[in-house]
């Protein structure tokens, strides 16, 4: 190959490359519309939750008549496929092609850690509801917020109140989903447990989406616990419960799903397996606040079934975002951020306060005790609300978010 043509090849390529670098940023959709992206799982391990989250967000936007501060709202969704690569690619693609500046979702904490990186780099407003403390902790940044209660508070509410009612149940066995979510809730379950003298007689970590729980249930049974604490997520919870019953472990031993979705799980479980089943959750339809009650009414009217954690979370996040836009009279991410920071107001969970240093929402968490079939007063009377509390709140010193950065 002659040197002339090789050089020619290289120069042509480099010239083309540098030429393109001069091209201004490709145009994005502009205009009066406020584009909101819901990044939800429609396929993959959490495929059943996607449609529920979509419902919640849609409900909130419909309640505002698809408009805020006089501008129409365009609501779009993307499937994150419960894969970090898809979540980030689609989020970024939506930012480029639809001019998205407000992102709510996804569902899995693992995905959220990926999405928050994109939000930080592209400076878009980002709201997530999840059990990993990292979003408002180690990975905090000015544009990201967490709607769910902090796992510190949540695990305390669960453990403290459970022990108040069952002071002799000191032997606990843990099932932990092996990713950010599981690690956070395990850490604080142990921390809360230490105040009650709980002996953690064993713990198993398994990947999200594990189908074969027989081995773990056998191990748990051999350790003779009082409580089998399920710190896993998704379908894993249901599989664990079923296996625990198959192996005769439950209902003798309490099954405690500390960060659960509540309603949706109840609907899928065999009623017999709901005995001695306790659930800690961010959202149950029996929540006694004006906003929650109204939302439950609307949801029930439309879908004939009460809402669980997922639709309530999507609704709650969207609602607060829209209210923040109204408060700031602007839909620019920086303005929404400033409107939310330090805001104390009443919303779905009752009183909420957005900690400006960490962007963690300080709010109530719930502990439910499931009812036996003969105790239910109507078809969806699944559980008694045993406790609703926001105490204790996480001291800032314990939080790993030391510098939330600038806009």
């Amino acid at each position, binding site marked *: *190959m002659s040197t002339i043509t090789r050089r020619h090849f290289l120069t042509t390529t480099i010239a083309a490359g540098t030429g393109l*670098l001069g091209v201004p*940023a490709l145009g994005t959709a502009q205009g009066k519309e406020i584009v909101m992206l819901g990044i939800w799982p429609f396929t993959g391990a959490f495929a059943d939750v996607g449609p529920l989250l979509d419902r919640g967000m849609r409900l909130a936007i419909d309640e505002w008549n698809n408009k805020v501060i006089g501008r129409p709202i365009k609501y779009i969704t993307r499937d994150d496929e419960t894969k*970090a690569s898809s979540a980030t690619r689609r989020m970024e693609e939506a930012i480029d092609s639809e001019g998205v500046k407000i992102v709510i979702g996804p569902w899995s904490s693992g995905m959220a850690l990926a999405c928050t990186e994109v939000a930080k780099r592209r400076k878009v407003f980002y709201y997530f509801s999840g059990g990993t403390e990292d979003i408002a902790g180690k990975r905090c940044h000015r544009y990201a917020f967490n709607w769910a209660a902090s796992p510190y508070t949540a695990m305390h509410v669960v453990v403290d109140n459970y022990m108040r009612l069952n002071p002799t149940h000191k032997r606990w066995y843990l099932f932990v989903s092996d990713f950010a979510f599981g690690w956070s809730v395990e850490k604080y379950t142990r921390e809360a447990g230490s105040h009650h003298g709980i002996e953690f007689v064993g713990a198993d970590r398994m990947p999200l989406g594990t189908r074969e729980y027989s081995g773990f249930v056998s191990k748990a049974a051999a350790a003779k616990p009082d409580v089998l604490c399920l710190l896993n997520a998704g379908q894993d919870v249901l599989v664990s419960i079923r296996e625990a019953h198959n192996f005769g472990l439950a209902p003798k031993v309490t099954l405690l799903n500390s960060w659960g979705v509540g309603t949706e799980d109840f609907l899928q479980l065999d009623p017999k397996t709901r005995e001695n089943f306790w659930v800690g959750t961010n959202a149950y339809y029996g929540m006694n606040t004006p906003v929650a009650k109204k939302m439950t009414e609307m949801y029930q009217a439309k879908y004939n079934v009460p809402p669980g954690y997922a639709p309530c979370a999507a609704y709650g996040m969207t609602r607060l975002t829209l209210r923040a836009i109204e408060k700031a009279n602007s839909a620019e991410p920086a303005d929404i951020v400033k409107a939310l920071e330090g805001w104390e107001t009443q919303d779905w969970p009752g009183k909420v306060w957005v900690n400006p240093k960490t962007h963690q929402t300080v709010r109530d968490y719930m502990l439910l005790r499931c009812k036996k079939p003969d105790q239910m007063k109507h078809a969806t009377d699944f559980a008694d609300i045993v406790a609703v509390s926001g105490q204790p709140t996480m001291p800032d010193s314990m939080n790993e978010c030391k510098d939330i950065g600038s806009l």
Partner: protein
Amino acid sequence: MFEGRPGAFLRFVLLLVAIVALPLAVRPVVASEIWIFSIAAMALNLIFGYTGMLSFGQATFFGLAAYTSGLMMIHWHAPLLVVLAAGTLVGALAAAAVGYVCIQRVGTYFIMLTFGFNQMFFFIAYKWTAVTGGDDGLPGIPRPPLALGPWSISLETSVRYYVFVAVVFLLAFYAMKRIVDSPLGVIFQSIRENPVRAAAVGYDVKWYKWIAFTLAGAFTGFAGVLYSMMFGIVPLESISWIISGDIVFMVLIGGIGNLYGPLLGAAAFKWLSEAISVLWNRWPLILGVALVLVVLFLRGGLVEAFARIRGAFGGGGGRRDADEGVPVRVGAEGEART
């Protein structure tokens, strides 16, 4: 470079046109991924299309390089060219080690060995959460600027990163073309066609297979580094067999044994998965149908499809280039013992 082969020159020009037009059609983010996976697909093509070894574990090298470069950028703020080199090296070394074991067997056994190693590395990445972040992936990866001496070009926006990816892709493409057109490339092809005869003629078949595998690992590692900088995170699936399977798809759909095949395959695959998935969540069905049709009727992939279309319109056409795809003719049992 193209003397005497006007068809090849035209194809190259089309490639340049594609590079310029693609980000306008599918957005820079998706377009960047297409070129990144094109590099990985070209690498698999080298060992499958040209040397006849189907590897179901290329994600091993893709992921290892991605994690390595990610860690270097997070902890040492390593510059761009350094991580590119490091990732390529990691890919090559890992392929050399893994390949050495795998090439001892052929056929299904070879496939299972590559798959088995992929699973083991996947497991290590999954469990070694302190280093890799486990199931959540490795977040917080910066995108260093391209620094050449006194000049420093930022690559922060999607467009800029796309330009960078496109340029290095062309360099990788050029390198691959050189390999394939060289005597080494011919030896690879002879191994695919008839390993027994290649050995009889005096070539150390295992040695050349190992070289091919290692080279492929290097290219795949290079692609992995580019991927790590795409979203600021290395997801666990970078090293999972799902990606290995995706790369196999791309090569097959595009047309094996042809230099441009993997590019078409990567583009088709990524475009389908992005464009169609927004419309229909069940898009893998279409992918499956496409694969089945290709395997049954169009084993040369998209390359063969274009050739047939061109043949249908242009009558005689030009000579068949050495570049043109050749359906693999080796019978299943024929390559049993090497």
